[in-house]
């Protein structure tokens, strides 16, 4: 039962065409994994250049124009081409059908098309980098982006516009799959929490992405055809752009962090070997975040000249959206209570996630407190805050998830001790990089500064030192995971003793995931039962 199966989704066919034209969600997950990994290191390369420049106050490594392109390429790549697709498109693709007991997503060909659209958008962005880059910041604020910038705005904007369709289609695919393709007996309240999180994320994909697409299209039209949407000289309104942009881009923060929360629920339960505490509260808090998350965009404009009343209302709503996140943190912590906890690498990432996400969330309260935000807005305090959420939260969960499901995806295990050390390095390097930035922000260092006053140097040097440690933490998994593909021990069906449906099929799974459609007869995370008491596979399947 524990040996690798003879034929599975990886070895059914080896040809390059069998990969490029595959409609198997598991293979498409690999296509995404390879592409987002490339984008991650591409965006990381620019982060390295930023941290190098900021080692000294004078701005002496590169020209200001070049530096501005560095942070723009870093932001655009990391947000649109790594963070947004990372967990949904890699882990979501691999896991959603298996977790609901289906053979594939509802629309397998659409799924492949989504990947091609993503790559097309990515190529536009790479082309703009090759042509000389963009310098607007990933936020593309008008009228700088639409009129004043002398860089390749149009090309980049088209790239982001195009990838948006990939998000929308992926979201649709997930929603339909989760509604229509659940195995018999798999009721909504028996679904793994990862599925709830992906479902909530998909709603944001579908409702939010069209808005950013249109907004960026308008920027492009204003820039290329001189139409007046945002430029006051042509009768436009620059703050209108910010409303439209953040109407998507705030919910996009939840696109990045909701799936991470889903992964977190899977990891904590698997390594504490008990049912999650407060299942329905964790599940509904995902939906609450998705809904309230659409109503808080104005907190990005507390000092942009929106009315005082609008500011107050957005402050209030921003506090409310913090509550479902707090509920999740309390429930994960309570899940550890009376668990049987092991400290395998994925769990180290999961525990690190709780710590860093908590700091990110608490500093979010500083920003929602509108009187304090006036001071820290657009400073390094904000940079630190969202890196705690998006890197400390989402990237930690992504790495934890990759480690957790790696044996399922590849059939191999990685060297556990090295993986634990890497997780610790990431945690320490991350804190050293970003904690000093809270102090810098409160001291008054604005973001996107190429040169800065000398009294800020010590904190910036700490941050750069931390970044070099963080880089080691990110390169290590790249090395040992690749190594494990060939030399890792054979993992077996369920190396962690987890209860998810995906662990009840061989590793790597057969192309159609399950030989027999499973029947679910108990709730998720039934660690007090045997897997056989949760899932029934008819007679021939488990032979």
């Amino acid at each position, binding site marked *: 039962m524990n040996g690798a199966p003879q034929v599975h989704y990886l070895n059914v066919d080896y040809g390059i065409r069998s990969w490029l034209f595959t409609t198997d969600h598991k293979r498409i997950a690999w296509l995404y994994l390879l592409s987002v990994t490339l984008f991650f290191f591409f965006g990381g390369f620019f982060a390295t250049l930023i941290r190098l420049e900021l080692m000294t106050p004078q701005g002496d490594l590169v020209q*200001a124009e070049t530096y501005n392109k560095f942070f723009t390429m870093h932001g655009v790549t990391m947000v649109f081409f790594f963070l947004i697709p990372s967990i949904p498109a890699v882990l979501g693709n691999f896991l959603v059908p298996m977790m609901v007991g289906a053979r594939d997503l509802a629309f397998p060909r659409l799924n492949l098309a989504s990947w091609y659209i993503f790559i097309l958008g990515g190529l536009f962005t790479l082309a703009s980098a090759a042509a000389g880059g963009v*310098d607007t910041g990933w936020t593309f604020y008008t009228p700088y982006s639409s009129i004043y910038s002398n860089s390749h705005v149009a090309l980049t904007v088209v790239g982001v516009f195009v990838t948006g369709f990939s998000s929308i289609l992926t979201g649709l695919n997930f929603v339909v799959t989760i509604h229509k393709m659940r195995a018999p007996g798999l009721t909504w309240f028996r679904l793994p929490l990862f599925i709830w999180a992906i479902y909530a994320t998909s709603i944001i994909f579908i409702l939010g992405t069209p808005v950013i697409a249109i907004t960026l299209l308008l920027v492009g039209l204003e820039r290329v055809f001189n139409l007046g949407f945002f430029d006051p000289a042509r009768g436009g309104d620059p703050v209108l752009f910010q409303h439209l942009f953040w109407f998507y881009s705030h919910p996009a923060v939840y696109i990045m962090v909701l799936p991470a929360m889903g992964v977190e629920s899977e990891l904590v339960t698997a390594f504490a070997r008990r049912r999650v505490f407060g299942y329905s509260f964790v599940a509904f808090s995902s939906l609450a975040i998705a809904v309230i998350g659409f109503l808080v965009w104005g907190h990005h404009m507390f000092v942009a000249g929106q009315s005082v009343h609008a500011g107050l209302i957005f402050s209030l709503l921003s506090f409310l959206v913090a509550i479902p996140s707090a509920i999740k*943190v309390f429930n994960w912590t309570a899940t550890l209570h009376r668990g049987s906890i*092991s400290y395998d690498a994925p769990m180290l990432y999961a525990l690190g996630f709780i710590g860093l996400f908590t700091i990110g969330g608490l500093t979010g309260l500083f920003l929602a407190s509108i009187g304090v935000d006036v001071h820290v807005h*657009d400073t390094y305090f904000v940079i630190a805050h969202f890196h705690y959420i998006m890197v400390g939260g989402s990237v930690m969960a992504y790495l934890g998830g990759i480690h957790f499901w790696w044996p399922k995806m590849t059939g191999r295990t990685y060297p556990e001790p090295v993986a634990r050390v890497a997780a610790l390095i990431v945690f320490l390097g991350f804190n050293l990089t970003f904690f000093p930035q809270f102090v810098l922000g409160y001291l008054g260092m*604005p973001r*996107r500064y190429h040169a800065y006053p000398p009294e800020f140097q010590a904190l910036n040097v700490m941050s750069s030192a931390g970044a070099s440690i963080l880089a080691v933490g990110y390169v290590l998994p790249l090395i040992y995971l690749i190594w494990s593909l060939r030399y890792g021990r054979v993992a077996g069906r369920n190396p962690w003793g987890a209860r998810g449906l995906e662990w009840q099929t061989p590793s790597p799974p057969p192309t159609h995931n399950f030989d027999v459609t499973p029947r679910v007869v108990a709730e998720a995370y039934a660690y*007090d039962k045997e897997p056989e008491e949760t899932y029934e596979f008819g007679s021939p399947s488990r032979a």
Partner: protein
Amino acid sequence: MWQNLPLFPQQASTMAPRVDALFFFLIALSLFFGLLIAFLIVYFAVKYRRRPGYERGVSIDASIALEIFWTAVPFGITMVLFFWGASIFLDQTQPPVGAIDIAVVGRQWMWKLQHPEGQREIDELHVPVGRPVKLTMTSEDVIHSFFVPEFRMKMDVVPGRYTTAWFEATKEGEYPIRCSQYCGAQHSGMLGRVIAMTPADYQQWLGGGATGVSAAQAGQNLFQRLGCATCHKSEGGSQGPSLAGLFGKTVKLQDGKSAVADEGYIRESILDPQAKIVAGFQPVMPTFKGLVSEEGILQLIAYIKSLSQQERTAAK
């Protein structure tokens, strides 16, 4: 590099201690919850570590009471934070009456400022300690942001409209102005400083280098030169409405709506006169877009404001 490693900026305005008080409260709150969660994680992770004979956790179902408790507590705390932050913000956004009116025009990559007495400054702003200063700001090109960390004050400077901010310096000294909205190549070089001086020194500074022409007078000159006066006579009876006493009043419009005659309204009347037509008048006022600079418009506004002040003093 390592000597003088400050952790907090100086407090140099009336607002600074108030913002800091909430900030320190937030830090205390974060320490409490952060350490609580960290302690629980470490404690559980050690106490319930997996060991032989203890291979499975004990699944305990949710306790509704507990869930309500940890929903209600954050709710209560966030509401306290909301009202506290909002009360600061309301004061941050409402300049006290009698503030010194400074006109600010931002552009890539400098700050141009004008005092009501007429002094113009570039990248420098001299102010007296102990008196509120109100900034009426706009930009000639992209969005900038006027940020003085020591005052805990920041406001975006947006083309095509006015934003306002105010501060009252409490300590003499020089405080950096940093542009905090990304505005292009020299964004990090768009710096300035506020020089807060004793009221006596400030009076002296105003006296020295004075042009003798106040902002309102400069506005009056422009008003004549641009021909506004031909249509806007103070006696009335001309093509356009009298502008005396206009500032701050509610104006009835042709379409039955009304509008408050603030800085933004007057700016729009000059640049886009057809946008709002005053009831009882014809839409004959031409646009002055391109004919008058942002600074000129601010001077015209200073002039129209001064007409209202004259009215008020005359009424008394």
